[in-house]
């Protein structure tokens, strides 16, 4: 089989994956920045370079920036791409939860991997990755520190608002009241998990549940979501690449979902 390339132009990060047969030959991730098509071009070239490929193989492009990529051979939504990617990694997947920078979505799959139903969060970024970035900054923590910090929580606090603006002020007043950062972080994770779980309940949560997107790197959110779902979630080793992987697989087969 010829190598094939998929691009996922997310609201925060742009990902490129090159696949050949059943194996990944290269993957690249860069910030999307303000000009999605520039990030797309850069990730495309870099991925081809890493894979040592000549020429310009046709790319399947997904993500919110997909319409802004002039060289896209095909544009496919994230719903389809995440479904294909997750299913490739975990053939037993029946539900896919993707929480990225600005979107969260839940996809229900049939036993043969077709998309049966999906939901996406509405319009605002409340309770997505961007929300966590703002909160991490307010707490003086890096993104990587959030998960480990919440594991050390000892007290159950509640953050009631998922609006980024209100939640930030709740965080600050909690800090001012002398609450421990660890407890606040855990409360934020719980708030996000509750929201995602609510979304997921709309399409029904069939096991196995795969968790993808950058927020799946946050062990704190994973833990809280597992608690609500009542079972272990399957998290890919590199959850952020799931959509680009799906796009690359679609490019390889030339097929529809």
């Amino acid at each position, binding site marked *: 089989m010829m190598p094939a390339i998929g691009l996922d132009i997310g609201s925060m990060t742009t990902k490129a994956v090159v696949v050949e047969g059943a194996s990944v030959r290269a993957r690249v991730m860069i910030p999307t920045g303000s000009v999605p098509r520039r990030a797309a071009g850069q990730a495309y070239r870099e991925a081809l370079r890493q894979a040592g490929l000549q020429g310009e193989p046709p790319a399947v492009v997904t993500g919110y920036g997909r319409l802004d990529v002039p060289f896209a051979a095909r544009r496919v939504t994230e719903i*389809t791409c995440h479904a294909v990617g997750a299913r490739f990694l975990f053939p037993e997947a029946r539900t896919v939860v993707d929480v990225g920078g600005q979107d969260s979505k839940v996809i229900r799959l049939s036993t043969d991997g077709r998309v*049966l139903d999906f*939901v996406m969060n509405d319009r605002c970024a409340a309770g997505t990755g961007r929300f966590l970035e703002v909160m991490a900054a307010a707490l003086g923590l890096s993104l990587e520190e959030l998960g480990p910090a919440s594991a050390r929580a000892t007290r159950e606090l509640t953050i009631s608002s998922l609006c980024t603006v209100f939640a930030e002020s709740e965080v600050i007043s909690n800090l001012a009241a002398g609450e421990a950062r660890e407890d606040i972080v855990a409360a934020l994770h719980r708030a996000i998990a509750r929201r995602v779980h609510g979304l997921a309940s709309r399409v029904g949560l069939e096991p196995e549940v795969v968790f993808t997107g950058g927020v799946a790197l946050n062990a704190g959110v994973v833990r809280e979501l597992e608690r609500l779902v009542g079972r272990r979630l399957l998290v890919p080793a590199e959850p952020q690449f799931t959509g680009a992987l799906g796009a690359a697989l679609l490019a390889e087969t030339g097929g*529809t979902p």
Partner: protein
Amino acid sequence: MGRVTGRLKVDGRLKHLLVAHYRDAYLARRLRRPLAWVSSGAPVELLHAMGIFPVYPENYAAVCASRRMAVELAEAAEAAGYSPDLCSYARTSIGSMLAQRGPLNGLPLPAPDLLFAASNICGVVVKWWEVAARHFRVPLFILDVPFLAERLTPHQVEYVRRQLEEAVAFFGRHAGRRLSSRSLSRVLRLSAEAVRLWNEVQLMRRAVPSPISALDTFTNLFPMVTLRGTRACVGYLRGLHREVAGRVARGEGPVREERYRLVWDNIAIWYAFGFMRYFTERGASFVGETYTWAWGEYEFGPDDLRDPLGSLATQYSRVILNVDLGQRLDRLLRMVEGQRADGVVFHSCRSCKTYSLGQLTLAREVQSRLGVPTLVLEADMADARAWAEQSARTRVDAFLELLEGRRKG
């Protein structure tokens, strides 16, 4: 593969009808014709039969929305203290009342001589009409229609029928008009004829390809809503019927290659017709809408003419927003199957709680009983501030990919 056609030719007459209707409304006072504001679920036949000119604030609000004026009017109402959570039709109408502005030559809806609303669509409309009654200091008649859970009881019919008698007396008192049974029969016959034609047009969409899509019916709904019971309405629908039948015979439709057949639930998004065209461009036709279908539910048979008020009471109790979810589900399932649809799009309308509540249950039932996929889109029929077109398009793209996967699978 069907031939593609653009807008319906009768659409040209539609604009004419709309202009004439509102012109007559503005002239009513000068012609000494009493003018009533009437809610969409009120038995308008009574007014026609009594020579009272009806206008629909809801339709007017929809016109405001399609001319992109609803938001500023809603803002005027909000500035006066009305909650943004209130139905956007109500906000638009109240805003237009307060600001004395509107999209038709800059004019608001002409002031009413009396007000007539029925509670069979929602509770908002009752309060909205009360606001108008205080504003214009004109008499108001509220028809209380009990919610129809499972079955319509004789007692319920009687309760509504008696109120209709009161309404007739009320209109007589305040508008100085009387009801003759002859003119009521005439109006009911015209209404029945319009309904019959409308329903036939709807059923013609069973054809593959569907001869028309949602954009056509949402536009062509106007005479059914505002002119039902008049000759003009019947005349228009005959033309529509002829044209649609011609399209079916020639295998024409609005979509180049009909790949997906969809059903729409809830009110149109009046300011986003470009978005509806997006479906057509992607090969998706709407073969039915619960909303446009609702105006085909007023079926008066010859028997009904014997007890016209009783029959009005029955018909107007059964409107889609006045029945329980089970009955709504039945109607929806029948439409999906009958029209050979392969997907249902639910517009979850922020304003209209009566219509939108329960949609998730309907969606789940459609999926599990018919195996037909569903999509929920969040929007509002008039308030464009609740609308994010790009993300809606992404959802549509994903939904069509899903349907495409089923075609292949």
